[in-house]
């Protein structure tokens, strides 16, 4: 497993073929990707909703801290773990870092 932290300057985004979806039948939010459906909890959904392909990881974390009035260390840890896992599964791309767009 890659244990590396994602650089705060990296710009995370959902690549083509990966998208958020409102599952109206089950009443949940999911991430749709090739051959995969991932059920998102509110935290995961909040993180992915912030990825616009423009703002850096540091800016995304700052936005989430302000919105949820939570300490940066906690948000940073949640976001790092969540995005690193999805990046390893090629469901999140990181601009400006190895493992970015092919």
């Amino acid at each position, binding site marked *: *497993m*890659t244990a590396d932290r994602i650089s705060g300057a990296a710009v995370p985004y959902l*690549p*083509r*073929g*990966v*998208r958020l*979806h409102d*599952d109206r*039948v*089950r009443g949940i939010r*999911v991430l*749709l990707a*090739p*051959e995969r*459906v991932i059920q998102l909890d509110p935290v995961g959904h909040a993180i992915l909703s912030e990825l616009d392909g423009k703002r850096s990881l540091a800016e995304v974390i700052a936005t989430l801290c302000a919105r949820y009035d939570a300490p940066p260390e906690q948000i940073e840890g949640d976001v790092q773990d969540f995005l690193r896992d999805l*990046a*390893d*599964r*090629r469901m999140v791309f990181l601009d400006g870092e*190895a*493992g970015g767009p*092919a």
Partner: protein
Amino acid sequence: MRDDPAPRDIDGNPVRVGLPMAMLAELTHRCPLACPYCSNPVELTRASAELKAAEWAGVFRQAADLGVLQVHLSGGEPASRRDLAEIAAAARDAGLYVNLITSGIGLTEARLRELDGAVDHIQLSLQGIDAEMADWISGYGGSFARKMQVAEWVRAIGFPLTLNAVVHRQNLDRLPEMIDLAERFGCRRIEVATVQFHGWADLNRRPLMPTQAQANRAREVVDEARRRLQGRMVIDYVPADHLAAFPKSCMGGWGSTGLNVAPDGTVLPCHAAQTIKTLVFENVREVPLARIWHDGAAFNAFRGTGWMPEPCASCERREIDFGGCRCQAMALAGDARATDPVCSRSALHARLRAAAEAEAASDSTVLVYRRMTREKRG
């Protein structure tokens, strides 16, 4: 549907019914290729019986209402349908994630551009790593060169691409090159799937059965490549199931998360289900999809665990692998309820394994190709 009786399995046990996530839409059984392991039934559906594009649109809307999130447009070769772009757009309009499973043959750059915006992801089959192997296995001269061209167009347009390598004794030794090719194409994923030996592949056990040594080596190749490509490319690997200790969880459990619509609208729990001749399958032309899913006797037949005989009934893995594949149990044990004989706990396992070893030791390279009897053109 309040007045309907509770759903029951093939033995009358009550079952719980979940919601399907994925639908395989077999748009046609027509295909220019003739791969000797084709997953289509041996009795192929003719073009004249295929659902029309407008009928597919209705099926997609019903599927989305039922809870399906992803549709896999497959065949046969889906590009053999001239109205593929219309069908793909209808699937996307229904709110589904659209995956196109294709050999690439029949696609042009212009046709691919028509699919841009409708298709989320493309899965391109790989029969071999060079023209000699791929054209021999597919029974279609020039298929490899054409496929490489299609992969370039797919990349230029920007579709995410998965290579789907089907492996067997004739090509498994070239697995490292298949993985390299996927990397060169910028694939995010490669699927490496060992041939499933039913249907057409059952007619080709001797030329295609991999050896134990090949399977062991393939495992090492996959493990090494996963480490090397961590964060760059995902490798999904389906090993030969008779060489494993336990069967695969076929379809994640019968009637549990997936369904298959055949070219003529017949709705199946899996693509091979029609080999179980005692089951009756309903058609979406006549019965609403939700009713087939929730109430259809064929879907309920093997839901849950109540129908299981021993050794499955008391097995701690019964809700992990659900006793394996019902179609394989039918084909190899002559009983769709039986423990899948690929399971090491099946009484038939030793005999199956010995047969597979004998098949793998064969030097046969004679392939029985998939063929459709030609339809008279009007």
